[in-house]
Each structure stands twice: as structure tokens, then as C-alpha cells.
């Protein structure tokens, strides 16, 4: 029992993969009573409430019929058989049969009526979690290891559903049986009943302590399960690296460490459970021994009849299962409660505010013609941004961006690696929110648009061309689900993605997880096609040609220039060749736009730009040596 004496749960942060220990809303900071946590399931279980109550009723009735059968049996034995009255046998036998069938039906009904509704409860919980996660901002996903999210969607929900199906029903039924039995015992003999009930007090105290310890251990085990899922996922997604360096052993070691930690927690849980079972089985049994002795003494002094003693003891013995089951049920409830806590931790994350989407067609979005000429295009005004985890005392990553991209213009954004270009582009579709300042599209603040509307207007090709395990067609059409074949063909053309025709099944070839059955340049071109297929009014391309060879790059540029001629575009570029796509260039340095102009202008006037584009200073340094 020593384990219970220090209820402080070790944090899962001791591992080097981030787990919930690293997460701001650490669970340990908000201890909730298990009942409160479980009550939160009510809105979901509500729909199935009648079924659950029905199931409880059926279970209760079934227990009653179990009690009734012996009475009928006794009737048969004492009546027809004892009196050799065969005629009297049949009605009683029929009653026995009916009772038996009723019992069978009740057992079946108890399960049947909750099967589908409870499965649906689980489905709804999971569906809601999935939808919620998709609405939560990128900054949330930056923080949370994916295995932690996954384990919430799978094993935690499984535990919660199981709780609603069995333990909850039995918790109610068995408590009822127990109370009935207790009353019965008191009516038989109050002295013996009191003796039998003595252990209830220490048991209750002990159970509370158990709950606390076991909840903490369950929570830890669930977190560790999440960590384990994270390690597995990383080991598969990073399999190329692990193979390239022959590091599968190191990773297996890491995995072993995590699963050993999980095992230790599970063993801790088993230890607690073992103690609880011992207490729950042992204490009543000891009390029963005392009751037996006392009862015998009472009988010897003729203060109690033998029949009553026998009745009392058999009632007490019959209550063994309801009492014992409490141990199992409590353990389960604690586990379900901490699973519910984990679940609602995510569900309680605040969602970013969003204006309701305007009805289609009647968008609030003013069409370019309506806005004053000066406002049209994309305008950044005093935009500042810092990542939530940036160390205090460092300057903001983006410290006052003022930038205007004129309508129809293509602006190249250049800057050193890590200067914040990708971050800046992520602000436009509101993947992150600026900490200060505003961004307008044709005069409309992007915060006045719903995300849905905004993202319909702004398309992005990310630096890392993330494809999904689907066909080429589906991947490209993500950008515009309703686009027809012609537009699809045009987009593929623009991205010079003619290679798709040579794939085994053309447009319907599966590209595999993350598109890894394509070459890097092919992936990048599909991501580009995806961005342009919707013919968006605003286009953000983050270093879209980095994996292309010089020749293909030139082809893509030529095609892109056409597309870009009437699109307002922000293109992140590293190389002069890409910069040439743009009408103007903006240089990002130290969190500000330090220079804007055409490529030639900047080359002339801005040494920093020259250095960045040609590496001149480096080169000169090298030559001078």
C-alpha cells in the first residue's frame, strides 16, 4: 500500500519526446472529481439515456428473476415431488420454464438495446473530437504530439464507451442489490448486520484513497500510451532517416523505454487494484467470520434461531459478488474518468473566434472594383508577430511589416533563411494570427471575413509539398473540389505536371502517404497545381520551385507568369531565377520590410539584397583569400 501514500503522479515529461507534460494546460493543474468528469459525458449519453435506463431495468429484473428461480425450485421439491403429485408438477415446471425464458430474454435485451446507441455515442464523441481538432489553430497542433491526440480518439473513447455499457449499469444495479440485501440483513438480525457492516467504514475511506491513486496512475498510463503512439508514428514517418543512418536500434531502444515506462505504470495500477481487491474481498469476509461466531453464540443462548442464522449468512454470502464487483467497477470508473478528462482537455481548448460565413454569392467580400484604388490588393499594416513560445526578451519575429501588394501584381519576398518569410505567408490565410497590426484584402480586414471565405480567396502552395494518400486527381482538386477537367488540365499544365500522364494510372494513381512515391519535384509541382487550380484571386507561393531543375523551373515560370498576370501574388523566393517571376521584390530582414523595388533597382541600391541574391560578399571573401 506504500504506493498510495504519495499520490503525486510523476509527470510524463521525463521522456524527451514531448508529451502532455509539456503542454500548457497540464492536466495535473485541474484535478477534477471522477464523478464530475464522467458527468460531462451526459450530453453525449443523453440521446441513449432511455436505452441505458432500460438496460439497467432489464439487468435489475434479471437479478430478480435469478432470485425467484430458487423459490419455484423449492416449491417443486417441497410440493409435487415430496407429495408424489405429478399433476401439480406441470404448472410449476411451466412457471420455471417461463421464468427461465424471461431471464434469458432480459439478459439479451439488456445488451441489445444499448448496442447501437452506445456505439453511436462513441462515434459522436470521436466525430466531434476530429471536427474540433480540425478547427483548432495551427499553434495548437504545433504544441500537441499527434500520438496524444490519436490516443484520445481511440483508446480513451473505447474506455468511455465501455464504461457506459457495463460498469455504469452494474454500478447502479449492484448498488441496488447491495442496499436491498443490507435491508434484508437488518430485518433478519440487526446485531449481526451491524457487525457485517463494520468494514464499510474503513472500506469507504480506503476506496477514496484508491480512487485518487488509481486515477493518477490511469492518467499517466493513458498519457504514456499517447507517447507510445507518437514514437511509432515518428519512427514510420522518419523511416528513411532511420534507415539512412541505420538507427532502427536507437529508435527501438527509445520505443522500449516508453513501453517499459507504460508497463511500470500498468504494474502500479495492478498493485493498487490488487490492494483494493484484497481489501474488498478480505474485510467483509473477516466481518462475516465475526458474524458467524457471534451468531453461533446467540443461537447457543437461544437469542436467535438456526434458520435465521442460516438465512442471514446466505444473504450475506449472496452479496459477495455485488460487493466484490465494486472493486472492478471503481477501477473502471476511475479509468473512464481520466479518459474523459483527457478528451475534454482537447474539447475545452478555446477555438479562434470566427465571423459567421456569409451566404454564398452574397459575400461581404467587396469586389476589387468597389474598393478605393489605394486599398486594393494585399496590404500589411504594422503587422507584428511572435510565436507563443518565443523566449522573453527577444524581438518579435515580425516587428512591424508594412507592405502593399498591388492588385494583379506579383511580389517576391526574399530574406535570409529563418528571417520569417514562411511565417509571414502563414498570416495571410490566418493559419496564425498577427499579434498586432492588420492585413487587408482589397480593403477588407481579413478578420472581418470568415476563415472559409478568406481561404476561398487565398490559395497557398506550402514550402513542404504535403500530399495525402489519395489519387493525383484528388490531391490537386483539394484546391477546388468543383473544378472541371479542363481547369484541372490547365492547372497541371501550369505546373508542368505532364508527368502524371506517364504514371501507371495517370490521374488516378495513388501517390502514397505524403506523396512519397513521387519524386520531390513532382510533389512540388502537384502542390503548385493544387494552389492554382481554383484560380484564386490571391496566391501565396512559398518557395515553389526549390526542387525543380533549371529547365523545368524555366517552363513553370513561363506558365506561371500567365496565371499570375491577373492574380495578386506573394511569392517567397531564394534565387534570382524565381525572383524574376515577380514585378517587384520586397526584402525581409530583422522583422521588417527593409526594401521594396524591382529586382534591378534593388540590385543597384541595396547591398543587403545583392549579397542575398548573389552571395557576393561571401564570394568576394573567398576570392580575396
Amino acid at each position: 500500500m506504500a504506493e498510495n501514500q504519495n499520490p503525486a503522479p510523476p509527470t510524463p515529461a521525463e521522456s524527451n519526446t514531448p508529451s502532455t507534460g509539456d503542454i500548457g494546460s497540464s492536466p495535473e493543474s485541474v484535478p477534477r472529481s471522477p464523478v464530475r468528469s464522467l458527468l460531462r459525458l451526459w450530453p453525449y449519453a443523453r440521446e441513449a439515456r432511455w436505452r441505458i435506463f432500460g438496460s439497467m431495468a432489464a439487468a435489475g429484473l434479471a437479478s430478480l428473476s435469478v432470485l425467484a428461480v430458487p423459490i419455484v425450485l423449492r416449491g417443486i421439491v417441497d410440493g409435487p415431488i415430496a407429495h408424489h403429485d405429478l399433476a401439480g408438477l406441470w404448472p410449476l415446471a411451466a412457471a420455471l420454464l417461463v421464468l427461465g425464458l424471461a431471464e434469458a430474454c432480459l439478459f439479451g435485451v439488456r445488451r441489445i438495446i444499448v448496442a447501437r446507441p452506445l456505439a453511436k455515442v462513441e462515434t459522436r464523441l470521436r466525430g466531434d473530437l476530429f471536427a474540433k481538432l480540425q478547427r483548432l489553430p495551427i499553434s495548437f497542433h504545433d504544441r500537441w504530439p499527434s500520438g496524444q491526440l490519436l490516443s484520445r480518439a481511440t483508446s480513451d473513447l473505447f474506455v468511455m464507451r465501455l464504461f457506459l455499457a457495463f460498469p455504469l449499469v452494474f454500478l447502479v444495479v449492484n448498488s441496488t442489490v447491495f442496499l436491498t440485501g443490507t435491508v434484508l440483513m437488518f430485518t433478519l438480525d440487526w446485531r449481526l448486520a451491524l457487525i457485517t457492516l463494520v468494514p464499510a467504514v474503513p472500506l469507504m475511506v480506503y476506496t477514496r484513497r484508491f480512487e485518487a491513486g488509481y486515477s493518477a496512475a490511469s492518467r499517466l498510463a493513458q498519457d504514456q500510451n499517447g507517447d507510445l503512439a507518437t514514437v511509432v508514428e515518428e519512427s514510420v514517418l522518419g523511416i528513411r532517416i532511420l534507415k539512412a543512418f541505420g538507427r532502427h536500434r536507437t529508435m527501438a531502444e527509445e520505443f522500449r523505454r516508453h513501453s517499459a515506462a507504460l508497463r511500470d505504470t500498468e504494474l502500479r495500477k495492478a498493485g493498487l487494484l490488487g490492494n483494493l481487491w484484497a481489501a474488498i474481498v478480505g474485510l467483509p469476509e473477516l466481518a462475516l467470520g465475526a458474524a458467524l461466531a457471534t451468531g453461533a453464540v446467540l443461537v447457543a443462548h437461544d437469542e436467535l434461531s438456526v434458520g435465521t442464522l442460516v438465512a442471514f449468512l446466505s444473504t450475506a454470502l449472496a452479496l459477495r459478488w455485488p460487493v466484490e464487483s465494486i472493486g472492478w467497477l471503481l477501477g473502471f470508473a476511475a479509468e473512464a474518468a481520466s479518459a474523459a478528462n483527457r478528451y475534454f482537455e482537447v474539447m475545452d481548448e478555446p477555438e479562434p473566434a470566427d465571423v459567421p460565413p456569409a451566404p454564398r454569392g452574397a459575400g461581404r467580400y467587396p469586389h476589387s472594383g468597389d474598393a478605393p484604388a489605394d486599398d486594393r490588393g494585399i496590404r500589411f499594416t504594422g503587422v507584428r508577430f511572435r510565436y507563443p513560445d518565443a523566449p522573453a526578451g527577444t524581438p518579435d519575429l515580425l516587428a512591424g511589416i508594412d507592405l502593399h501588394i498591388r492588385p494583379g501584381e506579383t511580389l517576391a519576398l526574399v530574406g535570409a533563411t529563418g528571417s520569417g518569410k514562411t511565417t509571414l505567408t502563414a498570416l495571410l490565410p490566418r493559419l496564425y494570427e498577427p499579434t498586432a497590426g492588420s492585413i487587408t484584402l482589397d480593403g477588407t480586414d481579413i478578420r472581418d471575413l470568415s476563415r472559409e471565405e478568406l481561404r476561398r480567396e487565398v490559395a497557398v502552395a506550402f514550402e513542404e509539398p504535403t500530399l495525402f494518400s489519395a489519387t493525383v486527381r484528388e490531391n490537386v482538386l483539394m484546391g477546388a473540389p468543383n473544378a472541371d477537367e479542363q481547369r484541372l488540365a490547365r492547372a497541371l499544365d501550369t505546373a508542368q505536371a505532364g508527368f502524371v500522364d506517364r504514371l501507371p494510372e495517370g490521374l488516378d494513381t495513388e501517390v502514397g502517404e505524403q506523396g512519397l512515391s513521387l519524386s520531390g519535384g513532382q510533389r512540388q509541382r502537384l502542390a503548385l497545381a493544387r494552389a492554382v487550380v481554383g484560380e484564386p484571386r490571391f496566391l501565396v507561393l512559398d518557395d515553389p520551385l526549390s526542387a525543380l531543375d533549371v529547365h523545368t523551373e524555366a517552363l513553370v515560370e513561363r506558365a506561371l507568369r500567365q496565371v499570375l498576370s491577373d492574380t495578386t501574388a506573394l511569392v517567397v523566393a531564394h534565387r534570382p531565377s524565381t525572383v524574376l517571376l515577380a514585378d517587384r521584390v520586397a526584402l525581409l530582414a530583422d522583422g521588417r520590410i527593409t526594401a521594396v523595388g524591382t529586382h534591378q533597382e534593388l540590385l543597384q541600391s541595396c547591398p543587403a539584397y545583392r549579397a542575398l541574391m548573389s552571395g557576393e560578399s561571401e564570394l568576394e571573401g573567398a576570392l580575396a583569400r
Partner: protein
Amino acid sequence: MTTAVAEPALEEDDLLPAAADDQDIPVPPGAPRALLGSLLAPHRRRIAVAVLTVLVQQATLQAGPLLVALAIDRGIPALRDHDAGPLIAVTAAYLGCALVATLLQRSFIRYAARINQDILLDLRGRIFRHAQRLSLDFHERYTSGRIISRATSDVDTLRELLAEGLQELLMVCLSVGYITVVLCLMDWRLGLAALVSFLPMYLIIRSFRRRSQQVYRRSRTAVAALIVRFTETMNGIRPVQAFRRESANNRAFDTVNQQSATATADGLLEMARYVFLSRMTANTWITGVVVLGALLVSDGSLELGVLTAFVLYLRRLYDPIDQLAMFLNSYQSAAAALEKMAGLLAHEPSVPEPAEPTPLPAATGKGREVAFRGTRFAYANGKEILPEFDLVLPAGQTTAVVGATGAGKSTLAKLLARFYDPTAGTVTLDGVDLRALTTADLRADVVMVTQESFLFSGTVAENIAVGKPDATRSEIEAAARAIGAHEFIAALPDGYDTDVRKRGGRISAGQRQLVAFARALLADPAVLILDEATSSLDVPGEQAVQHAMQTVLAGRTAVIIAHRLSTVEIADRVLVMDQGRVVEDGTPAALIAGEGRFATLHQTWKDSLV
């Protein structure tokens, strides 16, 4: 009970398109059972001890009623004669039994948990290590989500079985066996009648197993499909949000979610059906036996007392029906999961470890010679990417590979790194076929920086140390400094100890490439392959790396794939690839002076420069 488990997975294709791939992994007959056997075998002795504990515990627990009877029959009369001895003795025995039962219960729970957890640890480890052993072509098809579901949720089902199922089965067997014997001893005719009920029971159980097997298979597949969807969505959350895929994803997820719900509910309904049928059979049988007994009593061939006792015991014979149901439930679920896990474990890597490895000749410090001879290659699902070719890269040479995207440059590099084996011909390192090298030898000498610079969650230092797990901090810093990554790393919140988060999302793409590069340098290989390792760097950064490479590549054979021709200038030799063939091969100067593609490329590139 286990025979049906061996049947290969069948009707899955009608369930989920995404899950159809599961069929690509055939489950050898008997594999699931063999897997279970091999998991249990090492713990045979401990399992026996656990079983014994339960036996003794049950015996002490069953002694209770007997002692009550003793107290009443002996203790009370003795007490009336002012002899407290017998009652005290019986009470002491009762308390003793209670104590022993309690302690045994406690130790059984702990002991059994130990066995279970050891088995699970073993199984998880096996799945993980095996998944790591499997080749890339496998992973490209199987998806991470499915492996996650094998190593987590499938393992969990086995946990359920081990944690509760086995104890339940044991109890069932115990009480059924015990009571059957007692019944037959009491009266053979009634005993026989009771025994006959085992036949319908058996049929019911068999039908439950048959029917639920399909259901649980569907359930496992649906759960895997859920996990696949889930992980992929969360991993691609940026494009998902940017392209407004939320509702489409919700719909798609809903489909698999419903499938999983249906399978779950179907499983519960099968259970309900089983419980109903078996209860009904049992209760009908009880009535039948009572009637039969009554008839026997009335014709005088059976004593009343025997019938009474018989009927009481008969009821207890069918008591474990529920427990059996629980066991069957976890068993079926675990069987379906074992099938999937066994399928994964039985899948052999297509790039296997050599049975008899050949050691490499001692290192010369000059790099190693790489030779492709009569090599051809096609990915598993498609046409030939690299037609037959011969190529020798002498030790210490730096070779640049250029060519259009999709020309097969990365494929060539991946053959050299033995991510795949050639479909024909050989790839040799200092004359030794790569297939004859142990993974350890091969990876110590050949390291590739892949086009995707994947970082693991963990610190920068840990990520660099992937190249050499036992590297000291100064070695790590030296590697970072060598390619100009030190400045940015030092500027991170916790320097080298900054957590870069999942996939290295905490740092920018160019910075990720630098870390990946540093990682390769730290590994200090004889053959270094760089696949577009600097494509996301700015020009000065790229030049710094190039500058560094001139020193770093000394004494190594290097293959550099790059589009920026500046990189090519430091090479001793250039290969131009087109549609899987090497179409030009020579020193950079010679090729530039010529009139081939490289000369044109070079000119285009020169023009694009400032």
C-alpha cells in the same frame, strides 16, 4: 477453439477501399496461433504458478459454506454444552481461509499483471522492431496509421484478453469441470442428461465464434482505417485548413467512423445473441431435468434429497455462461487483432539482412569505390525507372548528378543507400555486394541526406546526434559549425537543447536542411549522398555549405544531387541523367566546354544569375 483463427482474412474488400491494402499482406495459415504460442511460451512456468494460485484461492473461498455448516452442526451444540472450543476453531479456520484467500487474490492480480505486461512488452517490441526492419516499398503502401494501429490498438485487445479473459476461462473450466463430476457422481442418468446439454451449448458457441469472427475482423480494419485518416489529417493540418478541407474530411471520417460503430454494435449484438441463446438453452434444460427428476422420484428410482441437490448444482453449472461470453468476446477481438499483427510480422522485408554477411575491406580513409554493374530498377508498382546501366564511382571522387525532376536521380541514390535492391545486376561497395553487407556495416559507411529533411521531435542536439548516437556535445557543435548552422542554433531559445517539435516544425525549412546536413557530417561516412540537401537555403547559406563541402568531402566518395549548378562546380565529375539513363558523364569543365545538355543548362543558369 483456435482453429478458425487461422483462416485467412476474407471479406474486407467490400468494407473500405482504404483498407483493401491489408489484403496485400497474406496471413500464413496458423500464424496467429503460432504468434500467440510464441508469446506465451517463455512464461509457461509463471502461468502455471498463476493458475495454481487461482486454484488454491478458489478452494479456500469455497471452504466458506462448509465452515458455516460446521459452525452450525458442531459449534453450536458444543457451545450449548459450554464447550467453546469447536466454535473457536471453526471461526479461526474461517478467518484463516478469508485471510489466505485475500492474500492470494492480491498476489494473483499482481503476478498476473506482471506476466501480461511482459507479454505485451514483448509483442509491442516485436511489432515495432519488425516495422523498422521492413523495407521502404512496404511502408509506402502500408501507411503509418496502420502500423500505429497494429502497435497500439491491436495490442490493446490482447491486453484485454490477457488481463481478464484468461482468468475467466480458468474459472469457467474449473467450475464446469467440478460440477459436472459432482453431477455424474450423484446420479448418472441425470448427469448424462445434463451432459447432453453441452452439445447445443457447443453449437451455440461455435456459431457465435463463426459469426463474430467476421465482425471483429471488420472492426479491426475499421479502427485501422480510422487511425489512418486521423493521423494523415493531423499531419497535414496546414493544407487541410488552408484548402478548407475540414467538412470534406469530416464526411470522410464519418464514413469510417460509422463503419467502426457498425462493427462495434454488430459485435455487441452477436454477444447478446449468444447470451440469449445459451441462457435459454440452459434454463430450458434445467426445467427438463427437473421434470425428468420428478418422474424418476415418483417412480421411486431417485431419492428426493439427491434431486434437490442436483437441481441446485445444475443451476450453478450454467452460471459461468456470462463469464464465458466475456472470454469469448475478448478472445474473438484479440484473435482478429492477432491475425493482423501476425500478418505484419510474417511479412519479410524485401531488402533483407544477409544470411552470411561479408565484411568490408579495411577503410583506407579515402572513401570507398562504388560500382553499379548491369543494374536495373523498377519500383514494385510500375515500369522500369532505371534501365540497365554500369557506373563506377572511384573512391574519393565527388560526383554531381543533375537532370530533370523525375529523371531518376533520387532513385539512383536510394539504390546506393540500399533503400531498395536492384531488380537486376548489383551495386557494390569496394567490390562487396551491398546485399552481402550487414546493416550496421553498410550504414556506418554509406549515409544519405534525403530530399525530405525529416526531423524527429526532440532537441536539435538529439536530431544531429542521430548521425552518431554517442557523440559528445562538442562533436555535435563542430558538425553544426562546419556547415554554418551553429549561429542559428545558438540563437534558438534553448540553443542546442531547443525542442524542434514534431517534424521539426519549430524551425524553418532551410534550418531543417542544415540540421539534416549536420547529422550526416557527424556520421562521418566513407560514402556521402546528398539529395538536394541545400535546396531551401538562401544563396549565401548555400555558398557557405559549398565552401564547407570542399573540406568536408575530402577523403570521402560523394554523390551530390543538385539543381543549383553552383554546387556542381565543386564536383570532380558530373553525370547528367535523363529518363533513367546517364546521358552525359565528364568533368564539369569538359562538359561545359562541350555542346551537350549540361553546357546548355549551365548557360541558362549563368544567365539567371545576377
